[in-house]
């Protein structure tokens, strides 16, 4: 007998969301400074003080001890779950659990990463005797582009998905970036530009791959009751879900489907009571063009194998009927290495109607979704202006 997750629906709200002062290539800022700027800005956005924060959630190279020290916070609840770039979406679920249990009231979820400049980034720790170093790294894997490609290749083989369809995602996302002054890459892009960019790891061209940038991002979550007293329009969390299936990509359960995404999505939709047709804006982690395509399939926006057709004809671009990655995504706006927090920030802004030229008309309900590791973990969240 599983717990009734639907009672969590709408129990918490996101009341603050912001990036660091700058995004991009920031050799003059450390990763912790990026955390601090984002936290400062998210607090200002929420109209809260540092002393209101009683829980800190973070992930990445900086431990969940580093941020409280740097910021001078003494959290009574700490969340350091690290499953890669979607961790911050999953932290919202964990914050919701802690708030509902009465263990904390105002949770800070923070991200800072000097992904490009590598300023004050603690080194990763992978030993020579790790499973990765024994069974994958000796074959010349070079970061996520290698591992994410296996699913793209198998998807192309099984469903006839084409490089042109993958490129549609990059082109549509760039059109959104052109409307976002904070986006790193804003020059117009064509499908031919993507296909003619140099090969990184077949089937991925350079422009199928995300940016590498420095940035911070933070969101503040509190109970729906407390949110009513704050100055901002609350963005209610209606549903969340998470799942992890593997660490080494070679051990992924399937190479045509993404089980972690499907499981996380089913749970988020069940908790929320929302249907796919009710979603107005989608913010999907786009480390590579294939990743949001699989999200479309696994979250039920199209059938397995149909994402290539779904994204064709610039359907996800400004003016298309499925607004996706409206900030310009990891492909064109920013990608520090752990992009997940930025899906939340953009969803909040869209629902609060703060997006200027890229604002999606009548956006009431948004979905955030992310990946971590190499298709290893997934987190889904559905948020709305209505409880």
């Amino acid at each position, binding site marked *: 007998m599983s717990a009734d997750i639907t009672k969590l629906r709408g129990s918490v709200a996101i009341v603050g969301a912001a990036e660091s002062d700058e995004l991009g290539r920031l050799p003059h800022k450390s990763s912790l400074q990026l955390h601090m700027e984002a936290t400062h800005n998210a607090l200002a956005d929420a109209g809260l003080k540092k002393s209101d924060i009683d829980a800190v959630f973070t992930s990445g190279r900086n431990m969940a001890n580093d941020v409280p020290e740097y910021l001078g916070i003494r959290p009574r609840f700490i969340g350091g779950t690290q499953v890669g770039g979607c961790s911050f979406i999953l932290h919202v679920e964990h914050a919701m659990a802690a708030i509902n249990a009465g263990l904390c009231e105002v949770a800070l979820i923070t991200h800072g990463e000097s992904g490009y400049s590598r300023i004050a980034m603690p080194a990763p720790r992978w030993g020579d005797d790790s499973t990765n170093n024994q069974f994958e*790294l000796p074959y010349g894997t*070079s970061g996520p582009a290698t591992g994410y490609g*296996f699913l793209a290749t198998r998807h192309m083989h099984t469903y006839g998905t084409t490089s042109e369809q993958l490129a549609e995602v990059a082109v549509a996302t760039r059109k959104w970036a052109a409307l976002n002054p904070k986006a790193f890459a804003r020059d117009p892009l064509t499908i031919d530009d993507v296909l003619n960019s140099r*090969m990184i790891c*077949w089937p991925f061209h350079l422009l199928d791959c995300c940016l590498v940038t420095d940035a911070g991002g933070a969101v503040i979550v509190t109970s729906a009751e407390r949110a009513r007293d704050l100055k901002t329009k609350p963005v209610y969390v209606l549903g969340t879900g998470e799942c992890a299936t593997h660490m080494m990509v070679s051990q992924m359960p399937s*190479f045509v489907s993404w089980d972690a995404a499907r499981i996380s999505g089913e749970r988020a939709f069940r908790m929320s009571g929302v249907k796919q047709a009710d979603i107005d804006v989608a913010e999907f982690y786009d480390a590579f063009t294939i990743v949001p395509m699989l999200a479309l399939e696994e979250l039920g926006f199209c059938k397995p194998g149909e994402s290539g057709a779904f994204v064709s004809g610039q359907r996800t671009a400004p003016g298309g009927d499925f607004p996706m990655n409206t900030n310009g995504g990891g492909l064109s706006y920013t990608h520090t290495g752990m992009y997940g927090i930025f899906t939340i920030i953009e969803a909040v802004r869209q629902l609060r109607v703060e997006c200027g030229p890229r604002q999606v008309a009548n956006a009431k309900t948004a979905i955030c979704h992310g990946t971590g590791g190499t298709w290893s973990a997934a987190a889904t969240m559905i948020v709305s202006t209505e409880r």
Partner: protein
Amino acid sequence: MADTYTGPVPKPTPETQPFWDATKQHTLKIQRCGDCARHYFYPRPLCPHCLSRNVAWVAVSGRGKLHSFVINHRAPRGFPATGPFVIGIVELDEGVKMMSNIVGVEPDPMLLRCDMPVEVVFEDITDEITLPKFKPVTPSFKPVTR
């Protein structure tokens, strides 16, 4: 070989040592569960399917299919490739999947196909470590247009 190899070299742990001992002898060994009768990879002393400890090492033929692949154009630092090279996910006949390099074929997407039959070959990279790699089983090879 030996002292000159510049790529990552696996360092066995107690539970993986039999795998590396076998590859050094140019034999592929994986584990099989005595309770649920399934093979599994990578090496662990408990079956990941049913958590039984009744597991044993078995030699396998090293035949399988290329489940998926990529062609990496950017070798990581120190990796001894001089141009694009193929990294595959190989599904052995016993049902387990493992990562490896696909050798004996040009790194050209037209010459590779998901599900093409492959078989193990061994590459001694140091005095201690031999990597299992895979090559196409050529009689079944049919180039495809992509």
